[in-house]
């Protein structure tokens, strides 16, 4: 049977060897092709993707598979030298809506309502979260446009950021709104950090600010310079997500801790800084200054910057706001027609813009110019002709080299002859000439011909050496942003430094230095000859208070000897003590310095008036450089301002520098040293006899005037402990009633010191004079500590500041 089946079912095809061979061969061919050849390229392709390009594809894959959320590190705090906070970061919140989630919340509210209606339960006890309800409430809390919020709510997107970095009060209010209305699924407060500057505009150009638009990266000043130290290490949370963005919990999660930024302690003293800023600002207003001002205060012994003020300034909390009156005025002028003079306007017109477009361009150009001006730390980024202040260095060099001595005499005819000079004759500020003067007098007079002579004696080669040694050919190396790499602009090469150049350089003209270079060099002149590297950051500490870096004072080189430095101090003290800088004098303090009025390239009506000072003269603790850029001359007389201030370093900068110096020295606790006319303490005379009282007063350099005829003293004006100028009269009551009435302070402005003293003593008041007090009849009062008309007790001391109002060109 089997055989039969075989016959019927199997042998259907006739054996055919040829056909079989064909099938065999062709099958083998197919085996070769599809069993082997076809698959070989697959291995190569896989190798190429998986091995050769593994990293490439993996990176791309990981990028899409993970969500990298950053954990912001707290930015470090910036302190002044006494620990006052100048800049700090705090957590604030961004308000974010999720229209999608809000929609879900609304649906669940509807469900609750339906449930309640069906089952007779109670309705939700909070209002329905309609879009309108949310929009109107948030708009009210955050002061936003309601319609805009409404529009964004209707977008059905996942996230809508409606306000960035809201203040704590606002975010608290939003949080309350969320809680009260069960909107935690829909409105979110996202933590972020905000930089606060508690002192607002204080030291704004030094501190700089962080730009919230670029991830809170420091944009200017210390914030930018020390970005790395301050910013810390941003942490990361890497989580896996799937193709539609859902987080895959517990899969491939990685956490990198954030490291908080380091804290900086600056050498700045907030108090000194505020003194500087107010003096700068006052001066700008007082002298009608057009192009700003700056003031640097440095500790000559270390190079630490104690104060650093610039004008115009701005509020660090709102860096894009312009608040400086000068800048505001400028913008106002641009708007009201000044735009036609702007370069951007002309350029836009040339490019074929309409007048309206050009106007807008000019406006935005001037706005960015203004912002740039207020952000720039002028005292380090820009340079100017130092003018006569530079004579301090020339003096130091000449004394050091022994080419002049204190006994040398110089004769000034008012004009200096310089070989090779063929322009207008070089004149002294005093046209008639200073005539014969010794070295100290020549410095005190700021006599240009004398200094040309000193420069000539020093010779070009030596002069250039000192230019170099005082650091004028290189940057100071301060830890601040923006210092030009060449320092200032010494236009001459050593080889090209001829005698004409030498002549003008001797009185500080035709070359430029940065204010920072100048004050650094000045410190070397008075501190014993040490050129210190200036610095602003004294210490870097980590978040736990460990000191990471401490700046030690760095001496760049010794420029002059201790002795030379001392001789310079003595000579420069005389500049304030009766010379061009006499307006800087402060009763009780020994101040030295040098005035300067520098020409600028902007023209004759642009002069930078400056004062470079130090105190105490015998042991300098501070060196200041105060300068006002271009007080506006009056229309009638180019030498004075509208308010009749004579435009010169001596009449402007020295005057304000004296005020500043007094405040700073007082703040630093430097004791005043008094001469005979200085203030003395009124002793207690009560119960003494007339003779004893007279003696007691005499001991204190005071005079006596008696009222009444009792035996013993029953009263006195001023009361004991009061401080009045030496030589004043104390009224002693011998049994008579001490008058209790008050007197009015008289107006003293414009009076000489004698007149003022008399006017005051008529009313039982005392005078305490400061400023230029001893030098001639044209020294008059311009400021008094108690305003005219104020009612005060008898015996009160009125401080009055005097100035030499009719000073001639001697202010150079």
């Amino acid at each position, binding site marked *: 049977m089997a055989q039969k089946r075989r016959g019927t079912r199997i042998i259907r095809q006739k054996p055919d060897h040829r056909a079989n061979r064909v099938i065999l061969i062709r099958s083998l061919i197919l*085996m070769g092709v599809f069993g082997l050849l076809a698959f070989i390229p697959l291995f190569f392709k896989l190798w190429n993707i998986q091995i050769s390009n593994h990293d490439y594809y993996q990176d791309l894959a990981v990028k899409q598979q993970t969500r990298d959320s950053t954990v912001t590190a707290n930015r470090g705090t910036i302190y002044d030298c006494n620990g006052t906070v100048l800049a700090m970061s705090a957590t604030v919140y961004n308000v974010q809506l999720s229209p999608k989630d809000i929609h879900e919340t609304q649906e669940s509210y509807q469900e609750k309502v339906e449930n309640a209606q069906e089952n007779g339960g109670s309705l939700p006890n909070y209002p329905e979260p309609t879009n309108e309800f949310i929009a109107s409430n948030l708009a009210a809390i955050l002061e936003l446009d309601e319609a805009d919020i409404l529009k964004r709510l209707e977008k059905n997107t996942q996230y809508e950021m409606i306000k960035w970095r809201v203040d704590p009060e606002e975010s608290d209010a939003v949080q309350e709104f969320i809680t009260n209305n069960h909107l935690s699924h829909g409105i979110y407060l996202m933590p972020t950090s905000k930089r606060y500057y508690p002192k607002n505009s204080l030291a704004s150009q030094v501190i700089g600010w962080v730009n919230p638009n670029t991830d809170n990266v420091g944009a200017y000043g210390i914030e930018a310079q020390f970005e790395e130290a301050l910013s810390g290490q941003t942490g990361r949370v890497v989580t896996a997500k*799937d193709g539609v963005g859902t987080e895959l919990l517990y899969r491939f999660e990685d956490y990198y801790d954030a490291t908080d930024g380091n804290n900086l302690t600056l050498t700045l003293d907030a108090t000194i800084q505020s003194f500087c800023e107010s003096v700068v600002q006052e001066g700008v207003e007082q002298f009608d200054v057009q192009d700003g001002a700056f003031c640097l205060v440095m500790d000559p012994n270390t190079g630490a910057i104690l104060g650093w003020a610039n004008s115009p300034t701005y509020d660090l909390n709102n860096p894009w706001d312009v608040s400086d009156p000068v800048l505001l005025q400028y913008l106002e002028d641009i708007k009201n027609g000044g735009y036609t003079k702007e370069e951007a306007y002309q350029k836009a017109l040339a490019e074929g813009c309409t007048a309206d477009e050009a106007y807008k361009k000019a406006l935005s150009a001037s706005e960015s110019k203004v912002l740039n001006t207020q952000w720039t730390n002028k005292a380090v980024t820009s340079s100017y002709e130092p003018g006569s202040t530079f004579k301090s260095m020339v003096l130091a060099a000449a004394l050091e080299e022994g080419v002049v001595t204190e006994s040398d005499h110089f004769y000034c005819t008012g004009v200096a002859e310089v070989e090779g000079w063929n322009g207008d004759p070089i004149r002294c500020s005093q046209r008639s000439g200073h005539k014969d003067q010794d070295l100290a007098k020549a410095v005190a007079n700021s006599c240009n011909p004398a200094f040309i002579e000193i420069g000539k004696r020093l010779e070009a080669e030596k002069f250039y050496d000192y230019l170099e040694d005082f650091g004028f050919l290189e940057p100071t190396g301060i830890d601040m942003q923006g210092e030009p790499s060449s320092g200032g602009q010494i236009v001459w090469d050593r080889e090209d430094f001829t005698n004409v150049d030498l002549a003008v350089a001797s009185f500080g003209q035709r070359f430029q230095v940065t204010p920072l270079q100048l004050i650094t060099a000045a410190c070397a002149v008075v501190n014993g000859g040490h050129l210190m590297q200036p610095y602003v950051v004294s210490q870097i500490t980590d978040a736990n208070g460990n000191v990471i870096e401490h700046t030690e004072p760095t001496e760049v080189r010794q420029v002059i000897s201790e002795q030379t430095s001392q001789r310079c101090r003595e000579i420069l003290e005389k500049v304030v003590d009766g010379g061009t800088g006499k307006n800087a004098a402060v009763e009780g303090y020994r101040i030295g310095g040098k005035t300067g009025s520098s020409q600028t390239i902007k023209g004759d009506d642009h002069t930078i008036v400056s004062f470079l000072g130090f105190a105490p003269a015998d042991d300098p603790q501070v060196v200041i450089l105060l300068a006002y850029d271009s007080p506006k001359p009056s229309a009638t007389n180019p030498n004075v301002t509208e308010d009749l201030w004579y435009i010169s370093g001596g009449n402007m900068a020295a005057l304000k520098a004296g005020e500043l110096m007094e405040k700073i020295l007082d703040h630093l606790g430097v004791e005043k040293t008094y001469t005979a006319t200085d203030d003395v303490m009124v002793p207690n005379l009560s119960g003494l006899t007339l003779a004893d009282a007279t003696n007691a007063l005499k001991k204190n350099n005071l005079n006596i005037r008696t009222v009444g005829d009792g035996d013993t003293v029953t009263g006195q004006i001023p009361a004991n402990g009061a401080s009045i100028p030496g030589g004043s009269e104390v009224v002693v009551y011998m049994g008579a009633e001490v008058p209790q009435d008050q007197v009015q302070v008289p107006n003293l402005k414009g009076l000489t010191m004698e007149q003022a003293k008399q006017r005051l003593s008529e009313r039982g008041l005392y005078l305490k004079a400061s400023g230029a007090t001893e030098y001639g009849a044209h020294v008059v009062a311009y400021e008094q500590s108690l305003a005219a008309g104020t009612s005060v007790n008898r015996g009160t001391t009125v401080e009055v500041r005097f100035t030499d109002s009719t000073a001639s060109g001697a202010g150079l």
Partner: protein
Amino acid sequence: MAKRTRDLTVVQQMSRGPMDIPFLMLVVILTVIGVIMVFSASYPTAMNEGLSPTNYFIKQAGFGVAGLIAMFLISKINYQTFRGLSIFVLGISIVLLVLVLPFGYGKSTVGAQRWISLPLIGGFQPSEIAKVGVIMYFAARLSKRNTEKRRRLSPRHPLSDVYAWLDEKGVLEPLPYFVILGIVAVLMLMEPHMSGTILVLVGGAAVLFAAGIRLYWFIGGGALVSAGLFFIMTQTSYMATRLAIWQDPWNDGKNGLGFGFQTIQSLYAIGSGGLLGVGLGKSRQKFLYLPESENDYIFAILCEEMGFLGAAIVIILFILLVIRGYWIAVHARDRFGALLVVGITTLTAVQVFLNISVVTNMIPSTGISLPFFSYGGTALMIQLAEMGMVLSVSRQIPAPKQE
């Protein structure tokens, strides 16, 4: 000795003779690996669809077990029965291909009418049946080509000389087969189902080739196909964009989020694997990044999880399977068995090759599933049934002579 010869009758060999164990083992191993990979690749998809994570796995495993049983049962059938069945299988598949056009489904999901649902069997692709049908029918007829009576025109017919000459040169012989292939191909292109069409043509061509059809047909056919492809690629904008995406998947007009997306995601998966892979079950690309990760692109997930090494091993397993398939064909007892196995083996090999080529972006993408791996119950069952046929043929391979 004589008794022993009598005991080992041909019938016994036919029905109970040993299957080809290497081939069986390869099929089982590949099926098991495939089902495991379906589990790994499908559970994120299942979860995303709100199903149990093991949903697809259990279904696939069920079909796998059923398929292996079916394979075993089919291997028990004397394959000569397939000769007679072949015409029915082909006929049914053509009917189904017609029916799928009005009654099928798939338009909404893949944009092509490819599936049809039948009572008891469930949903499947008629094209899968058509592939087998074509191979079976071609093998059955071509195995008898040497005995077939040649038709002749009457000598009076004006074209009788030409006809005889053409017949002599083998021009006429394959024409009926071309007609059948043409009908099936047109029906499948109407779905449309480009990749299925290719596979049917490849299966049919393989049988025709092995059977001894004149080579010029293949040379000419190859030239025609090349010219056609060249024309389509260069002259039609549809293919031009596809080619551009093939060369640079990111250049799909949507920065890699358009038509290039799947290819890019596949490359990410394969590339992430590296040498040793991220580990079984640890693919990240299957988390809704790579579309059809459990289906046409399951090989990419395999590459990601098992690395180059794992992928190479799987490819080698396929190569061994294919080689063993041809080995069975070469040793088959008769021409029908040989041609049947050649057809099935070539079909499988081409499918594997095309799938991996698409997944690795070696050729422009077209939807071809990977045998034993891609998710799809009926496809797996039909696949294993085909392997059952191969095994059935292998049972009748004469035992090598002992002496």
